[in-house]
């Protein structure tokens, strides 16, 4: 059976879809057969980030309603061989999703795929709850600011109570924290919560820290998941995140403020004089 990962946050605009896209590409590039599902019915975005918006014919809701079969709706990704995308419907709303329908689709995918990444919509309503219901792993995407942290805390509460694993009393969902849009400079200035601040409140293992980066917006607009931009700091940070998810031990990068080259020279001089 495939392992089901939900990418969730509660708050909107923190980077769930960006993370889902990069996560899916990262897993597929490591040889795992991966499907990524857009649960944001009515606000379809994943296809844009993945750059496959022109190839959408059938969608998730069509499959649930039996209007198309899975193979017709799955779109083969152009970046990674082992990756398939199941887009959301743009014309329906989240009530079009049913628990039985989602169960059926995940079951069918589970037979042939290694990983299924569920891109959750914002909020705590039906769409978000269905996205997390069958999950084995949760990636909680959080920005280093108080409202995002509180919403993530709420999601963690739902993950531990409103999911299949919780209801059946099985081993709980494995929770991972992914801090996105992290700016070490603003942390030093005291404008942003630090990793420790967030950790103190949420108290779940930190999977990765994605720095605030120009590359993310550029990647979104061009339909190339940012993990493919391995020159960028955000792309490298996502690659590290995948490695950690698969069990590798890597130190967190991009969490210290970059010092200016002049400053570095001066500090070297200081050392010499000492």
């Amino acid at each position, binding site marked *: 059976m495939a392992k089901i990962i939900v990418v969730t946050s509660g708050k909107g605009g923190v980077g769930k879809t960006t993370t889902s896209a990069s996560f899916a590409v990262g897993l597929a590039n490591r040889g795992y057969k991966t499907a990524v599902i857009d649960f944001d019915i009515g606000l379809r975005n994943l296809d844009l980030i993945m750059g496959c918006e022109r190839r959408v014919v059938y969608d998730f809701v069509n499959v649930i309603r039996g209007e198309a079969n899975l193979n017709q709706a799955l779109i083969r990704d152009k970046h990674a061989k082992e990756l398939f995308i199941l887009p959301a419907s743009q014309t329906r709303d989240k009530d079009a999703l049913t628990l039985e329908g989602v169960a059926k689709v995940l079951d069918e995918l589970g037979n042939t795929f290694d990983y299924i990444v569920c891109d959750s919509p914002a909020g705590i309503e039906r769409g978000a709850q269905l996205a997390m219901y069958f999950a084995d792993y949760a990636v909680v995407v959080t920005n280093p600011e108080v409202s995002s942290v*509180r919403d993530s*805390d*709420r999601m963690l*509460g739902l993950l*531990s109570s409103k999911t299949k694993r919780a209801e059946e009393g099985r081993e709980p969902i494995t929770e991972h924290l992914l801090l996105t849009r992290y700016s070490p400079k603003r942390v030093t200035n005291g404008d942003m919560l630090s990793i420790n601040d967030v950790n103190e*409140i949420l*108290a779940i293992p930190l999977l990765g820290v994605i720095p605030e980066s120009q590359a993310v917006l550029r990647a979104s607009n061009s339909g190339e998941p940012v993990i493919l931009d391995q020159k960028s700091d955000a792309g490298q940070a996502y690659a590290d995140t995948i490695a950690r998810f698969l069990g590798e031990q890597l130190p967190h990068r991009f969490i210290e403020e970059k010092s200016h080259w002049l400053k570095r020279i001066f500090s070297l001089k200081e050392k010499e004089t000492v």
Partner: protein
Amino acid sequence: MTASSLLMDKQACFLLKTNFAPCTILQLTRYDLTQLESQLHATIQRTPHFFMGSPVIIDLEKVRQLGPLNFTKMKDILLANQLVPIGVRNGSEEQQCDAATYGLPTLTIGRLSHGETGSHSSQKKETHPRTHQTKLVSTPIRSGMQVYAKDGDLVVTAPVSVGAELLADGHIHVYGPLRGRAIAGVQGNTDARIFCSLLEAELVSIAGYYLTKEEMPLLDKTQSVIQIFLEKEKIKIEPIL
């Protein structure tokens, strides 16, 4: 005969069910029927609709030493004031037998009085003492979650987030940062206390008295365990040395 009425005929014409309906208790502090009448009249006048037709149990605890009482008169007074007497309680054995002959059976709904002795000791044994179940939670209590320890204490061995709510009829103990709300003595127990190792709560409350974060004194974070309790209707926050 229609099909439905045929069906009805086969069913029993009544069912016996146990039920505890809320009921007003009229506790006699002394036996003075004239005063009873005037006081009752005045009370009913103030809120005429509130008591209209309410069932009433007459509590005889304070007058049980007095011997025979005039239940016919008592009934009439109550009925005249729109109250419907349905029984008596806590009377002497003789009084209760007497009341029963006037259509007022002995009812033990609700709390038995402390003065209960003698013939009622057997009934007293049947009312179980409240079991004080302690509820233990060892997973983090996240924003939006609510945990209630009914009839007992609540022990939490994990962090309590902002926006989470702890409730207990008894004490609350938190061995982790307390950032949400803690409400002890929900049902009015003023002896209930809150204990925690790190107090950053949004609100603490004991038996309805509360303090918001803004009103809490600033505490030294390195301090040991903190207890919160009620003293002269004021919430006190003190470290346990």
